[in-house]
């Protein structure tokens, strides 16, 4: 036998037919229809069709049907449906066009409906029940697409001529909603419209309905896309005068109908979400007993409206029901995901409609149904909420994962998009001043920090060696928080008053902790056996709070005399700590000579300070006069490395004197003074010294010596010889040059006199000064 393999290539709508050998011709014909729709998507397989297998070329073919020796295609061209009949010659695989009929398209108008015109029209071949089919296909009730209709109905629908000519009739359900028929062998007949469903026809088929075993279908069924069902059957004459005629019973089932097939007595159709069955015999009982009047028709329509659900979803194609060995009805369905399913209906399912149930049973079954609906409803809502919860959870975990990856990815803690900075502040509560550290978590990542995150800050002294036990004393603060938006900030404050002076500088290390417990709850967490770590710790940056940050500056306006409350040893320790903390920046350190008060001084090159601090402040406020000493103190007290700031209190934001009185964390008084020094001592009255030669008494001999030389050089420069009455002022360089020349001479002199030690005593300070300038 020859079988047809049809490929319909939708992008370039041409029908390609090729022949190949196959064993079962019967099944092949039946399988053509699902095959056609499936193959549509297999565009890539177009490759293996060679030109020789091309049977004929036709555009826009949507559906096709094979009867004995005739192949029919239904195509959509411009504004017509074109039914073309080809004859297959037995010997060769060639096709010869016999006839083609067209019927004008009923324009749908809107683009959406026009798209639906591209769906596959339903084509079936109907024969009168008393005509034997000539081919091997004829074996009683055939496949879905070849039906034998009861002769009377056939004659009523398709006319006497078709019946006399024993012609098969092609019935097509067009996507524009019409049912058209064409007697195949009658010459000169056109496609005629039988009925209009007014919605795209999905399925046309025939059912045996009541009478079983005769092999002739008693009714024709057409199903529209939106659920309109038309059952066409013979109506016997009701009164004496009338005669039998074809009755069209319309009904509605819940749509959209994706696929339908018809069994002995039932119509099975899939809506995509469910598979439903509609008993056709029930309906026929009503009409037959009551005759054809309006009441009966409405009753019939009502009978059509109650399809039974079979609870199978996602079916896109079905094949006709078959009876298996045990008598069950079996359907084959193809699901959306490409799964082939065998659906077995319970025994007697098809007959169930015939057995009349008593009112008692009915009411009971109604109650059962109602309660069942309630159960299902409840279960559905529970499941729904569970699904919703799980979705949220997944979303949440996804965020967590994102953040973890983000933070792990950054090696340098300074650049992490989520990080902390801090600010120290003194607050007075209940007559007691306390030092607080305001820690701010800054989220500049694009992710939400949701529930379950905790900010952990660990405070411990940097120089822990000072504790006698040698153990690390650290304090841990945990701040759980909700939702932190991208770009948002979280402020937490932690007390530092517990720490005494000795513990400075303090390291504050920040970390984000995520724990699953907050997300799942203890119980659910316990059920997860394999999880060892229920929390994730993501280190952020580390902050350093030093002693300077902890200073409580006394305001200059309300100048109060601080009274030392702590003993001297502690203060000395403070200075010790301070010195050690600042050690790496010291150029030189000197121990003070006074006994009551401890003092420490740090020498910094004034030019260096000018370059860094003054230039910085000039950038900000170019007009303001700048004092190096003031800005040095300002810098010391306000700016700090490592993201920690000191909060300014009141109007002290700008210091106006190079002296700051402050209280340390343990209430000791601290005076910070910034002085600019030349040659290691302070000249109180430079004018007197220069002009009148007044020198302070407390100076050493060598200092006086050097001072006098410097003064002479300056006078030479300014007053006496070089720049007197000149427009340009004397310059520092000139003076330095002169002093240096003197220095060179002096050095030579001392070296000649072999007085190196004296030279070093007298000029040591100058040498060191000159080296740094």
């Amino acid at each position: 036998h020859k079988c047809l393999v049809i490929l319909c290539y939708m992008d370039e709508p041409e029908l390609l037919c090729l022949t190949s050998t196959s064993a079962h011709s019967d099944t092949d014909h039946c399988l053509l229809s699902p095959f056609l729709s499936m193959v549509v998507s297999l565009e890539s397989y177009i490759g293996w069709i060679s030109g020789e297998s091309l049977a004929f070329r036709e555009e826009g073919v949507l559906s096709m049907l094979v009867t004995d020796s005739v192949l029919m295609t239904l195509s959509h061209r411009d504004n017509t449906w074109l039914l073309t009949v080809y004859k297959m010659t037995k010997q060769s695989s060639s096709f010869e066009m016999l006839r083609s009929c067209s019927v004008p398209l009923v324009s749908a108008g809107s683009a959406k409906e026009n798209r639906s015109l591209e769906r596959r029209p339903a084509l079936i071949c109907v024969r009168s029940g008393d005509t034997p089919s000539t081919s091997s296909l004829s074996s009683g009730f055939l496949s879905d697409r070849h039906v034998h209709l009861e002769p009377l109905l056939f004659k009523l629908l398709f006319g006497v001529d078709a019946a006399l000519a024993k012609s098969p009739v092609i019935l097509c359900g067009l996507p524009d909603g019409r049912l058209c028929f064409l007697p195949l062998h009658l010459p000169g007949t056109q496609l005629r419209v039988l009925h209009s469903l007014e919605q795209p026809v999905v399925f046309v088929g025939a059912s045996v309905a009541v009478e079983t075993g005769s092999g002739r279908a008693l009714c024709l069924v057409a199903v529209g896309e939106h659920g309109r069902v038309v059952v066409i059957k013979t109506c016997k004459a009701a009164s004496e005068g009338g005669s039998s005629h074809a009755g069209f019973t319309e009904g509605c089932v819940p749509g959209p109908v994706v696929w339908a097939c018809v069994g002995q007595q039932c119509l099975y159709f899939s809506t995509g979400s469910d598979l439903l069955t509609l008993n056709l015999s029930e309906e026929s009982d009503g009409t037959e007993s009551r005759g054809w009047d309006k009441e009966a028709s409405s009753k019939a329509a009502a009978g059509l409206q109650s399809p039974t659900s079979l609870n199978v979803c996602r079916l896109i194609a079905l094949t006709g029901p078959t009876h298996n060995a045990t008598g069950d009805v079996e359907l084959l369905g193809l699901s959306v995901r490409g799964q082939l399913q065998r659906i077995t209906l319970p025994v007697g399912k098809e007959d169930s409609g015939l057995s009349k149930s008593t009112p008692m049973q009915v009411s009971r079954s109604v109650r059962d149904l109602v309660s069942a609906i309630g159960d299902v409803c409840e279960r559905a809502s529970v499941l729904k909420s569970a699904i919703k919860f799980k979705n949220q959870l997944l979303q949440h975990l996804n965020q967590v994962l994102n953040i973890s990856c983000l933070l792990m990815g950054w090696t340098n803690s300074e650049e992490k998009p989520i990080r902390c900075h801090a600010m120290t502040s003194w607050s007075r509560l209940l007559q007691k001043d306390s030092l607080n550290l305001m820690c701010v978590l800054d989220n500049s990542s694009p992710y939400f920090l949701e529930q379950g995150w905790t900010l952990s800050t660990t405070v411990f002294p940097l120089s822990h060696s000072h504790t006698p036990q040698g153990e690390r004393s650290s304090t841990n603060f945990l701040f759980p928080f909700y939702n932190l938006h991208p770009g948002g900030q979280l402020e937490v404050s932690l007390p530092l008053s517990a720490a005494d002076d000795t513990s400075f500088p303090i390291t504050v290390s920040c970390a984000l902790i995520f724990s699953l417990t907050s997300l799942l709850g203890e119980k659910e967490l316990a059920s997860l056996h394999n999880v060892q770590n229920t929390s994730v710790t993501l280190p952020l940056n580390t902050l350093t709070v030093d002693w300077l940050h902890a200073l409580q500056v006394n305001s200059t306006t309300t100048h109060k005399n601080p009274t030392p409350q702590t003993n001297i040893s502690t203060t000395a320790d403070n200075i010790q700590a301070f010195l050690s903390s600042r050690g790496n920046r010291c150029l030189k350190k000197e121990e003070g000579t006074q006994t009551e008060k401890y003092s420490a001084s740090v020498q910094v090159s004034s030019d260096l300070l000018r370059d860094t601090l003054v230039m910085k402040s000039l950038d900000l406020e170019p007009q303001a006069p700048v004092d190096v000493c003031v800005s040095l103190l300002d810098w010391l007290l306000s700016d700090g490395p490592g993201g920690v700031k000191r909060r300014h209190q009141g109007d002290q934001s700008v210091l106006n004197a190079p002296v700051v009185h402050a209280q340390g964390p343990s209430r000791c008084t601290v005076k910070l003074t910034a002085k600019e020094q030349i040659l290691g001592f302070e000249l109180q009255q430079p004018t007197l010294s220069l002009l009148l030669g007044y020198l302070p008494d407390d100076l050493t001999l060598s200092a006086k010596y050097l001072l006098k030389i410097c003064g002479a050089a300056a006078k030479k420069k300014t007053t006496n010889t070089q720049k007197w009455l000149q427009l340009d002022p004397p310059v520092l360089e000139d003076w330095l040059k002169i002093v240096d020349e003197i220095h060179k001479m002096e050095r030579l002199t001392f070296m000649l006199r072999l007085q190196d030690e004296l030279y070093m005593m007298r000029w040591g300070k100058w040498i060191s000064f000159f080296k740094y300038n």
Partner: protein
Amino acid sequence: MAHKLYKPVSLLDTWIQENNNLVNKWKQQEGGMNTWNQDQSNLKCLSSEFHKLLMKIQGVPLLADHAQLELTVMYNACVYSVALSQFSEAELLFAQATERVLQMRGEKPVTSDPPVFWRKIMKSLKDTDLNASIHWLLCLQWAVWLATCRLKMILELQEELSSALDLLCTEVCDDRRRKGKSPDTPLLVLDPRRLVELLRVCTLIAHGAEKLSEGESSEALNDLQNASSLPAPRTLVAYTHLLSGSCFAHMSHPQMALQCYRKALETDCHCVSALYQSMLVYRQLRNTPAEIQALRLLHSALMLPSATEPVIAGTHLLSQSLLLCSQSLSSFLSVPSALSVLHSLALKCVLHGRVSEGVEHYLDLLAVLHSEDQHQVSSKAPHLPRLPELYLEAGAALLMVQRPDDCITLCEEVINTTQDLLPERVVLEEPEQKGEAINGDVCAEHEDKVEMLLWSGAAYLLQGHCHTHLKDWKQAMTHYTRCMNLLMKVRFKKIGCQPQILSADMVDEQGTDLCVLQRLKGLSLCGRGICFIQTDQLREALRDLQLSLQAFPECVGAGLWCGEVLWRLGRRQEAAACWEKTWSFTTQSTAENIRLYLQEPQTGPLLDSIELRQKIQELVPT
């Protein structure tokens, strides 16, 4: 020669080359044996190629030195547009061409009225090199007008067109000379001279057909005679003969017409319409043997697999079927389908004494209807009667050739088919009222029911005849009775009256349902009466025969047998009167209009008129 080698290839040359390549490509393809589909796709392909080339050329303003080329390419592109029936596209190209030419000449573009601008451009280009090229385009415009049946336009520009004709014909020698000189002139895809010849003949034919359909036969004849003298393809010559024949037939010169049809057939054996037209002439002349012969030929000609149209070189691109598409012409060329020809052949044979031959034709017809492979490519409806009527006609013919068994089988088919559909009661309305009925659907259904009833009745009647023929009186009577029972279901309704029983005087028109009904009644009663006579139930026979005469007074059999019964009953005077009366209206003139199965049976027991006359003569002296 040397300097030519170094000359850079100019754009003009490449365009000419491209054009010539395309033309040569087409010429090669034309030579091959291609199917229609392949040709069509080739046409489409080349058409787009030419249009592309044209667009390239039109990218620069039209200058005198390449105007020739542009017009040539435009001509080629237009030829393809016309060949693909894209007439509006072609007209757009014409408008473009004229506009560009006028621009080149520095003249203002003119109105869109085609005759006006063509005239203007002709005047403007007279005595220039482009004169010939613009005439080619005019010819194509002519083709478009012809194909879209705008004969008026052609008439309006008659002068220009004829000048074009002259010009193109005189150009022949010119052309040859030029060909020898320069090998790189742009080639044409279709020789304009051939085109002009074709157009001239086609225009004359179309014009003639138009005139003929308007009834001005002599003018049409003039045109067609002109056309037949022109050189033209075989098919077109046949058309001219065919149309002249129709003119003669119209002017009631049937013999001349037949001559012309014969000429047409001799010229082109595929001109089937000539056969059909001559058949119609024979029918008009009542020359039945010739008509039957013509029908037979026509049928066999239609059954031949239609040979492909002979390809005529140079005009293959624009075929005559493309140019001749007017309604009036196609009505002259149309031929009924093979099936309806076969049916009328069969019917003619049976009606005119060649019954056995007719029966063969009927059987052929039924076989074709039942076979699955009819060569029914054309979808137009043949004028065939409904299938049950065909069955009944065939049955009647079978009975005539003494094959009652076959007839019974056929009738059985009809009865079985209609059986379930018969109405219990039906009201036949007056014809006038039926005509006015607006709700056509209900009316059609109702009519269908009446028809079905009548078919069924006729089938019973024929079965009765068959049984009578087989001398199975009892069976015959049963069938006649069945027929009558069916017919009794019909009530006749006049406007404003109650449905009533029919009487013969109400039948005034033949062929209506009413007439058929009365005829059926009369015949079935007559048949039953004859059966009663054969079984010697003379009283019943007399009743039936008299009823039959009431229903259908012209029934010869009933009249004669009625007399016979009367004679046998001893009422000889009445019998004689009855016979005389019957003979008085035995004309049989209406036989042709009555359906075959409603005619009185020629089989079964018959009375010899000569014997009857002798009986009367015996009676007169007494």
